[in-house]
């Protein structure tokens, strides 16, 4: 079986009743393993809500979501944490690094939560920092690094536990164009090594870097196409 994400008829409704907000409206979506998908939409389009569903940060009001064949629609908080830890590597717009930890310690964190032993943890963390070109910055704290470097640490953290999915929420949103290109390059490289990459963005140029583009407007998917101009890294 090659399906990674299988979403059927998902709805997410906030404040049910008179003032209800339908952030996702009967969304169905399938993403296969190894795909590089960009989900694009303007602010308020529902792309962040969709990302929260895909990343098991929230559960749908209705519909079903199968991640790697497992139904994650109605799991408990701890079960969702476990899925996030094992199946998904997150990259956020604001980097979300822990300020008082070094780059190495930040990358090590999801491995600790997973119960990986110290020696293996060290190997995996160093390997991922090397992959993003930060072997020489392992002892630096986030405040001692540039935005681009911080985002690369976040990517190293996302890939350290070798999750099957990389979920990047506007990863270039806080970066200059040079750093943005660097980050996209790394994501493409990860895709090339067989990882599935889901990129959330509002930027058409960034979305154009992905192999498949899904456009979302008012909580509905209005466009889903293969990008012919996609170029492998």
């Amino acid at each position, binding site marked *: 079986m090659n399906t990674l994400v299988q979403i059927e008829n998902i709805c997410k409704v906030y404040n049910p009743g008179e003032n209800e907000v339908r952030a996702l409206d009967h969304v169905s979506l399938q993403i296969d393993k190894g795909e590089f998908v960009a989900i694009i939409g303007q602010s308020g389009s529902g792309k962040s809500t969709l990302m929260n569903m895909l990343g098991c*940060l929230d559960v749908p009001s209705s519909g079903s979501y199968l991640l790697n064949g497992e139904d994650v629609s109605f799991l408990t*908080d*701890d079960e969702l*944490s*476990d899925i*996030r*830890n*094992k199946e998904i590597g*997150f990259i*956020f717009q604001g980097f*979300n*690094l*822990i*300020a*008082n930890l070094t780059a190495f310690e930040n990358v090590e*964190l*999801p491995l*600790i*939560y*997973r*119960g*990986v*032993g*110290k020696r293996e*943890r060290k190997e995996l963390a160093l390997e991922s920092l090397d992959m993003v070109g930060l072997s020489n910055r392992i002892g630096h704290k986030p405040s001692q690094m540039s935005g681009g470097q911080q985002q690369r640490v976040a990517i190293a*953290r996302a890939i350290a536990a070798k999750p099957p999915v990389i979920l990047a929420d506007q990863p270039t949103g806080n970066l200059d164009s040079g750093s943005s290109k660097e980050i996209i390059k790394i994501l493409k490289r990860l895709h090339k090594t067989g990882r599935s990459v889901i990129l959330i963005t509002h930027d058409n140029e960034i979305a154009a870097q992905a192999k498949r583009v899904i456009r979302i407007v008012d909580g509905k998917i209005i466009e889903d196409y293969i990008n012919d101009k996609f170029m492998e890294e």
Partner: protein
Amino acid sequence: MRISTLLYTLKQGLKNVIRNKVFSLASMATIAACIFLFGLFYCVVANFRYMVKEAEAGVSVTVFFDEGISDEQIEEIGNLIKKRVEVDKVNYISADEAWNEFKEEYLGEYADGFENDNPLKDSASYEIYLKDVSMQSALVTYLESVDGIRQVNKSEFTADALSSLNSLVGYISGGVILILLAVALFLISNTVALGISVRKEEIGIMKLIGATDFIVRSPFIIEGMVIGLIGSAIPLLGIYLGYDKLINYIVEKFNILSTILKFLSVDIVFETLLPVGLIMGIGIGFVGSFWTVRRHLKV
């Protein structure tokens, strides 16, 4: 739960204490003050109870028998008394022993005139020592109903006074300790709540990258317990080191009361105080942080 995860949470708990230095120290100081007062109170109460117990040991009930009662009947009465739950020890004092004691105490050299005469020939008695002076009235009521007993002598005032003093000290100490516990719980709860609010962002990140509730919450609870442990160990050590000096000072200063002032040794006091003090400290830390984490940390 893997050992590496447990070690991680333990390490994080210790780190929290250091990261949050000022508030951790404030909480430790509060717990230390509470446990110190508790320790002092305990020493006072334990020693007071010891003195009361010693005084109680001297409180007895004496029974005298009907005139012309046989030795067998006296022995039978003795057996009945010994079976009572209130009774700790029974001494039989024969009429001769009573007379000899009286002569020795009051007559001295003038006793020669009495020769073989014993004016106390009907004064054989049982001297009954109680397990607890508060049981005296129950025993006296029983003794007064026993056939063959003429008179029951008791020290009502001493027994009642000791018994109520003992209860009063118990109630006061219980009340003070409860107040101190409440203050300590409040302060440790504040320290942990502050730690949670300072680390709100960090907690959010931890959850995003897959930390379970246990991993997020347990370092705060460990932090509370470590604060409690250190906060209780310091005053206990202080009391341990200062106890003998204080006792020696009191004995020297109040030499005149040396027959009443009898103190427990530091080792006997600490047989109870050490485990209770440590458990209290760690317990305050655990309860305070656990309650705060449940209240303030919605993960």
